[in-house]
């Protein structure tokens, strides 16, 4: 089963994270890759984002992220794992779990081309 890990970071908490965190991330990525997972992409800060929505048939453009939450979506991973239990176990290893939240989302199987 495919799972997406959504990394939500709290900028405040991240600022207090020790420099060792990036080394831990490297180790996590290596372990993940060894187990067949793929590191996803990192996103620029949420403040650099924009949103579009349609209200009364007219597109509305907004600066900034969609949700005004304390933790912002900062990046993701994709993993193929047997079940949610295994997914949660991996999520707990992600260094971001200490400085934010790792949200685990099952994916619909990709439609083959």
């Amino acid at each position, binding site marked *: 089963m495919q799972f997406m890990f959504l990394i939500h970071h709290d900028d405040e908490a991240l600022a207090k994270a020790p420099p060792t965190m990036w080394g831990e991330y490297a180790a996590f990525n290596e372990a993940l890759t060894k187990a067949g997972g793929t590191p996803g992409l990192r996103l620029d800060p949420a403040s650099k984002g924009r949103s*579009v929505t349609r209200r009364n048939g007219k597109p509305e453009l907004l600066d900034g992220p969609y*949700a005004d939450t304390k933790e912002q979506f900062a990046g993701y991973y994709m993993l193929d794992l047997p079940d949610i239990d295994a997914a949660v176990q991996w*999520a707990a290893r992600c260094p971001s779990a200490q400085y934010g939240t*790792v949200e685990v989302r099952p994916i619909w199987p990709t439609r083959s081309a």
Partner: protein
Amino acid sequence: MKFMLLIHGNEQAMMEATQVNSAGMSPEYAAYNDALIKAGAMLAGERLRPTTSAASVRVRNGKTEVLDGPYAETKEQFGGYYIIEASDLDAAMDWAQQCPASQFGTVEVRPVVQG
């Protein structure tokens, strides 16, 4: 430049509006997908299962906490994404406006860290 398009929509409403069965794709999305591919903009895309199947994990003071549901309870839930190639943010915003989700929900555009 790479951009991530985050699709937010009310899960319930989205299911009804696009008349999509669980594993299939609506004609609107099929057309949008084709357009992205033809333009050479499509890099990746996935649909997420509803937030009822989500779990959130945090580690605080050395203790792992596992909660049901997504990180945040929002009116519109994060339900899918695209990774696209576009010349700049404005171009990415054009793609966002063309996305069927912009009619029923919100499409958020986030630049990807380059390099």
